[in-house]
């Protein structure tokens, strides 16, 4: 750990809380179910995964952008009586922030175990990419300075930052395309992934231009899904089914100055991780060089790169090289998004990347290797197509959540 990282604060919380259960639905286009039904499936799956009964989950948090259901409905459908719940407005980077909030409400004595969910029909109802109902909405008030110019979707709004990075640092389309290439390799070993097909750099840069510098394959995949993680005190994990993923540190919804007008405050190639890193590494007591697996948010290929830079996994401006040199690949120095992430497994607003890292820390991120007599997979660590996904000796993971260039959250977990 670099000497300049201040590890003096939040030590008393380091490892005190854990993620003890994870669950999700399938990633589909056309779930045929309401977001309430999807959420109920995902939370139920996470409870079963943890070995928690209905009377043992007393807190619930969810996030959405008006396109989901509410915690009390889901709780009712699962026979839970809640002592605490809150449904917050938020998209990407909410997962890690809500992990921190769950720790806080348990620490405050308000409840003991919190299920956090995100549920969306991101393809069949409110399309996450911004087409459909969102694109047709009237342009009101401050939106006249943006949407009136045909500047509305995440891709359009982030592109100032992406293009300026290419201009300032010489980042190439082919380097950034490697994010998709590598995540597609990971997805090809993940039966849950919506896109399991491996792609090449040529496939990415020759796919349809959406808005420069984004091609179709630089953008994540809209799906219908619900995802859930369950947070409680680490000491409770002893009575539960799974090896816990210990929460070493969180940073939540850290923002750049003038977050809503991030393009006013430079350098615009700097993203919120620049500020969040000082909180994250201090709280976790580790640094980027200690991390075995990253989950750097891939709403777009570029977002993965920008965050890895600003959290210190490489020098500022060298992100293009980092994402292209194979470090992020299974078998590489520090694999990223081993499930295939948003680009291939499915877009969830961040939750599936935390779920995957929990499974990595348990040693259970594997759907293909042969089962041993104890019912556990015998990892081959052969990462060829259709093979293993488990990283060897995975002890520390980092999730880097992105809302937009101006806001991000992060989470470091350790093997329990």
């Amino acid at each position, binding site marked *: 750990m670099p000497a300049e990282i201040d590890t003096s604060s939040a030590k008393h919380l380091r490892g005190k809380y854990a993620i003890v259960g994870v669950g999700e639905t399938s990633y589909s286009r056309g779930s045929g179910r309401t977001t309430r039904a999807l959420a109920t499936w995902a939370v139920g799956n996470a409870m079963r995964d943890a070995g928690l009964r209905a009377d043992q989950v007393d807190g619930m948090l969810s996030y959405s952008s008006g396109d989901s259901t509410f915690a009390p409905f889901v709780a009712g459908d699962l026979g839970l009586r809640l002592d605490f719940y809150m449904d917050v407005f938020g998209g990407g980077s909410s997962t890690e922030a809500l992990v921190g909030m769950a720790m806080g409400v348990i620490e405050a004595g308000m409840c003991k175990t919190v299920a956090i969910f995100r549920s969306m029909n991101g393809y069949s109802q409110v399309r996450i*990419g*911004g*087409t459909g109902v969102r*694109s*047709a909405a*009237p*342009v*009101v*008030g*401050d939106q*006249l*300075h*943006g*949407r*009136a*110019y*045909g*500047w*509305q*979707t995440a891709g*359009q709004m982030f*592109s*100032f*930052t992406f*293009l*300026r990075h*290419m*201009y300032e640092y010489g980042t*190439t*389309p082919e380097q950034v395309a490697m994010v998709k290439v590598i995540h597609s390799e990971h997805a090809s070993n993940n039966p849950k992934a919506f896109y399991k097909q491996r792609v090449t750099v040529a496939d990415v*840069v020759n796919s*349809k*231009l*959406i*808005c*420069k*510098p984004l091609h179709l394959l630089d953008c994540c995949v809209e799906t219908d899904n619900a995802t859930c993680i369950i947070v409680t005190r680490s000491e409770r994990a002893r009575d539960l089914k799974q090896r816990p993923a210990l929460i070493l540190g969180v940073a939540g919804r850290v923002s750049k*100055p*003038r977050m809503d*007008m991030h*393009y*006013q*405050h*430079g*350098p*615009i190639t700097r993203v919120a991780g620049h500020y969040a890193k000082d909180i994250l590494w201090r709280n976790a007591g580790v640094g980027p060089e200690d991390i075995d697996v990253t989950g750097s948010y891939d709403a777009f290929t570029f977002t993965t790169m920008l965050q890895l830079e600003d959290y210190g996994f490489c020098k500022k401006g060298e992100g293009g090289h980092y994402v292209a040199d194979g470090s992020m690949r299974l078998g590489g120095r520090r694999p990223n998004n081993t499930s295939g992430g948003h680009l291939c497994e499915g877009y969830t607003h961040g939750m599936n990347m935390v779920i995957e890292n929990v499974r990595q820390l348990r040693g259970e991120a594997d759907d293909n290797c042969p089962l041993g007599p104890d019912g556990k997979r015998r990892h081959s660590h052969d990462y060829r197509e259709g093979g293993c996904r488990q990283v060897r000796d995975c002890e520390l993971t980092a999730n880097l959540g992105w809302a937009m260039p101006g806001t991000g959250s992060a989470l470091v977990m350790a093997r329990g």
Partner: protein
Amino acid sequence: MAGIRIDYLGMPLSLDELDGENLTFFNYCARHDFHLQKGPSGLMRYPPTTACPWTGERDHVWQRVEGRGAVYSYTEVHQAIQPAFRAFVPYMVLLVELDTQKGQPTADEGLRVMGNLCTADGKLAPPEMVRKVGIGSRVRMVFSDLAPGLSLPQWTLDETAPQPAKPWRYPQE
């Protein structure tokens, strides 16, 4: 001031009568006159806000600003998401750093003003004009007149300014 409800390219736009700052801003634009709020510290800000983002001061005067600058970044949209823009692809959304207040209050800041690349009469630019513009291109402000009291500030190539030999453009056309 009354609010505004109009239609632009088939897209409903509205400003509430309570939104005094934006109404004032767009009213100046309707006179083809670009004004920004200037606080007691002397710093201007864009777009209109309740208070100065650097000092928190709410007092302000509206100050005329010259609409000239250089393209700081952009996106060129090939797949329009809003139905209003489908007929105009590829269209450009520019982030223009004004010459006024460039590098203030810190070296990395400036007044960066949005707008589409347009012709001199405020129409969305044709593809042959789009291909000439990139980071560093010198542009001047023009206006798209949408309705009485509401014009959008836009940008067009500044014919009077020396242009970079090769403005930086995304490598694929």
